[in-house]
């Protein structure tokens, strides 16, 4: 009995102590809907670990405009219902969350309308519902970086570069090996129109989930002899594609991977067959960036690092987390420039995301040159980057080497598809688009 009282008492003391520390200074609260257990834990621990490591770096330097970030985590296991529960649980804590970034298409899509009602920015870095790019119709939904159509137009542009110019794509054959899911299918129609524009022919070949057997698909590829194969894969499908390509005599260097086929987890299981494999990336892997070195020195040096396995510093998912941390905190900083160096409300943060501009100079100041692409979001474009690089896997050194500079997507071509999707959504949902144009950012929306 005595021990129980002691334990309770000390827990109480600890709680009181903690709350008094927290209330001592002004803070902004960020909910972290992480997934650290379950089948997607590799992505979740890396991404949210990178975010928290960057937040810790900023807090150690005094926060954003003198306001420190605080956060609490909630486990979603990548499932929509747990994610929604986490959102509802955390959104009003500590004076109100400033934004919500779940790194899951399912969760962020389920929250689009909830976010609109709650005036809460829903962030989906480098992915998400493509039509959401239209900020006049989706004011609280942001996907800074690139969207699916950017991704594929950048891949075609890269192939054009390899062939010595876009005009040389005429008569070329491009096959797309896609994962048999809505995610896989999403790019088919766009690839058709992309090839129509550049005179190449396009063939889409489905690999049913999970894709651990691709004999028949690759026989088809051997018959039709495409010049390039785009890999729109997921999970085990990626290494199997590389191994089967090698067995079938298709040069792996002409197999080009998309965003979900570009991590270490995709190439290492394929062993030597992955040597020379190229993939698109929005952010290079590795630790050769000043900001990453700072995190290693100041955060991990102080024992505050989030990753338990330090060898994952510089991995694809962790670097994406650092990138997301930069994007989040720069949006907060930009919002502070307008509203003052104080804790912000969620709709003020929304203004920050909508006016988020990351110039090369600012990225250099942050020490993230080469890691973070230039971004320029506005009221009509909630993506704002449309840039990616390419990397090639060196199986002997077990590392990715960057083989291209930032390449821009075909924003014009994707715009019409995005407009059609967004306008249908607006009509279905009785949403009146905000007055936005290239020179008006609808500055006082919802403030």
């Amino acid at each position, binding site marked *: 009995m005595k021990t129980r009282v002691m334990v309770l008492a000390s827990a109480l003391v600890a709680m009181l102590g903690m709350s008094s520390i927290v209330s001592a200074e002004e803070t902004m609260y960020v909910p972290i809907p992480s997934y*650290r257990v379950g089948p997607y834990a590799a992505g979740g621990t890396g991404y949210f670990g990178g975010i928290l490591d960057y937040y810790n770096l900023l807090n150690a330097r005094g926060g954003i405009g003198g306001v420190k970030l605080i956060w*609490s*985590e*909630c*486990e979603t296991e990548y499932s929509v*219902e747990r994610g929604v529960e986490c959102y509802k649980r955390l959104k009003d804590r500590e004076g109100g969350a400033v934004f919500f970034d779940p790194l899951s298409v399912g969760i962020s*899509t389920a929250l689009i309308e909830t976010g609109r009602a709650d005036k809460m920015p829903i962030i989906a870095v480098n992915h998400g519902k493509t039509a959401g790019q239209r900020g006049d119709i989706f004011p609280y939904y942001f996907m800074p970086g690139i969207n699916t159509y950017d991704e594929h137009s950048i891949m075609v542009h890269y192939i054009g570069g390899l062939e010595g110019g876009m005009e040389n794509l005429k008569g070329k054959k491009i096959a797309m090996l896609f994962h048999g899911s809505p995610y896989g299918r*999403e790019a088919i129609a766009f690839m058709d129109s992309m090839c129509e524009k550049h005179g190449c022919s396009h063939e889409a070949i489905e690999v049913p989930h999970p894709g651990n057997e691709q004999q028949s698909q690759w026989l088809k590829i051997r018959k039709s002899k495409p010049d390039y194969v785009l890999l729109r894969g997921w999970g085990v499908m990626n290494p199997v594609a590389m191994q089967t390509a090698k067995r079938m005599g298709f040069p792996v260097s002409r197999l080009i991977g998309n965003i979900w086929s570009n991590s270490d987890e995709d190439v290492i299981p394929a062993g030597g067959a992955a040597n020379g494999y190229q993939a698109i990336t929005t952010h290079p892997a590795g630790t050769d960036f000043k900001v990453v070195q700072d995190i290693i020195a100041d955060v991990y040096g102080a024992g505050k690092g989030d990753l338990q396995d330090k060898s994952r510093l510089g991995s694809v998912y962790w670097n994406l987390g650092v990138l997301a941390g930069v994007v989040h905190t720069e949006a907060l900083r930009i919002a502070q420039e307008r509203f003052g160096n104080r804790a912000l409300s969620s709709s003020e943060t929304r203004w920050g995301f909508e006016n988020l501009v990351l110039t090369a100079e600012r990225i250099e100041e942050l020490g993230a040159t080469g890691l973070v692409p230039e971004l320029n979001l506005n009221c009509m474009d909630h993506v704002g980057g449309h840039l990616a690089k390419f990397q090639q896997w060196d199986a002997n050194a077990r590392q990715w080497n960057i083989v291209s500079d930032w390449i821009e997507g075909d924003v014009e071509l994707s715009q019409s598809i995005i407009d059609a999707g967004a306008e249908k959504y607006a009509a279905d949902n009785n949403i009146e688009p905000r007055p936005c144009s290239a020179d008006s950012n609808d500055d006082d929306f919802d403030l």
Partner: protein
Amino acid sequence: MYYREAGRLVKSFASDRRMLPLMEDRWIVIAFLAFMYIVVTATASDYLFSAILIPMMVLGVATLGLNIATGYTGQLSLGTAGFMCFGAFAAFNLVLRLEMYLPFAFFFAGVIAGLVGIVFGLPALRIKGFYLIVSTLAAQFFAEWVFNAYPWFLDNNSSGVVALPPHHYKVFLGQESTPFNAVFWHSYQGRYLITLTITLLLVLACKNMVRSATGRNWMAVRDMDIAANVIGISVAKTKLMAFFISTFYCGVAGAMYAYCYIGNLDFMIFNLRRSFLIMFMVIVGGLGSILGSFLGAIFVYGWPILITRMGDWIFGGGTLDTAFVENNSKIVVGTIIIVLLIREPGGFAALWLTTKKKLRSWPFAN
């Protein structure tokens, strides 16, 4: 207990056939419903409505559906999430293409899911037990395949996730612009009330089926199908009937899951894992019990949330590694389930019955 049953004699057949023969039970149920309809509706927060109460009721209905097949009729099934998926897509397409009012769409979604259930229940006429699991598992995979391979069901939406727009939320009385629909669908109270009403109707229907010839046939088939056949029950008809009703409930639950809870349609959320979870809900709650279905759903869905919230509350959010808390909550939940099932194989429903029996003779020992 605070009331005694001794010496109460029924004086008419009508009162003998009542669903709740004791006046006190009736008052308790009425008080509970009044609490749910009035007090909860007036006072609960958005969080309680949208993250706790609605999903618990929806999952409870799905669990009840599985319980009809598994608990009452003895037909094991692992296709629950697949049947929910059929229900959700049926409701979506009925609203989209026939512009049906939502309550009717829910009903016909249940019917469509029920017909699918009959098709996948056909093997039950020949095979039993674990073999039947394989057949119903096929329903699960079939659902995932068909809604992936034919984007028509998703209104050709490229991303695979469809938001359910307000014109979908036509309840009655005309178009979406009427205040009635606005009140009902653009507030969580409204969704909660609709979910509660549908759940109540389905529970009443199930309770009456179970205590009528239909339910007695189910239980006869469950306990020994040959004997049931000998006394003149058509085993084939009974089994298919059970599958139809069971998948009807699952289908309605799936439609409510999409419309009342998530507000999105996405076949990925009706995956095999959900089928397993619903099966756990049936086992933990108690096979062949209506109350148990809901207790199981509340426990399996709510307990992990309670544990992590308690962890946050005791240790302060953020001080403990969430993966640590999460894994520990899984260990605790697993341990509780094991202990519960060893101590009380009948699940929460049996636990409740024991408590009731004890209370009945209280303060005497037996």
